[in-house]
């Protein structure tokens, strides 16, 4: 029989996955819509991209809310909270931050090099930075926590 602890552990994994998928869809489509030249993307496509990005945002909000609700439930039970924040979970979280940091550093380095050859806006660089900064640690967390 699955204990409440392991059930919540699995729910947390699924919530993080939903959060990541929603965020990536929302962010990537927003970047495409905003930065692709208008003559490359037909008008109908722009509207479609915006709707798809909005859908991604809704998914992100739903999973964000779900995560907060789960956290408030866990917080009420100190024993459950400690078990769900056990040392393997903390180890996975620490490694995810490290991977996220290096991914962000490499991305910023790449953008710096790219800026020597092409012109692009600071907004695009910032959006890519946020995307990588959120997606890389979350993806690492999901992969390592699956072990």
């Amino acid at each position, binding site marked *: 029989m699955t204990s409440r*602890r392991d059930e919540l552990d699995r729910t947390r994994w699924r919530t993080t996955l939903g959060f990541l998928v929603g965020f990536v869809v929302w962010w990537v489509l927003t970047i495409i819509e905003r930065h692709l030249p208008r003559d490359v993307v037909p008008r109908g496509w722009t509207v479609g991209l915006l709707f798809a990005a909005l859908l991604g945002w809704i998914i992100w909000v739903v999973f964000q809310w779900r995560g907060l609700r789960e956290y408030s439930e866990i917080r009420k039970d100190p024993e459950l909270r400690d*078990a769900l924040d056990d*040392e393997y*979970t903390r180890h996975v979280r620490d490694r995810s931050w490290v991977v996220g940091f290096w991914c962000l550093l490499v991305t910023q380095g790449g953008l710096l090099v790219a800026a020597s050859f092409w012109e692009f806006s600071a907004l695009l660089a910032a959006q890519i930075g946020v995307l990588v900064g959120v997606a890389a640690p979350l993806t690492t967390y999901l992969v390592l926590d699956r072990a």
Partner: protein
Amino acid sequence: MDKHALANRLRVLRAERGLTQEELADLVGVTRKTISTVERRVFVPSTTLALRLSRALGVPVEEIFHLED
């Protein structure tokens, strides 16, 4: 690979006591995943967790963990 990798007999000792990973996790106060990753040597536990495992299984810690030559 570490010259003296940490090996363990956690799976054997747990099975001898008829415990599932989940039951041992409950006794120790961690998730089943933690027990599973320690058994598979994916994760090296802290001294605190090693001592908690030792207490839960009723054996000295060196009976669970040992250094490989």
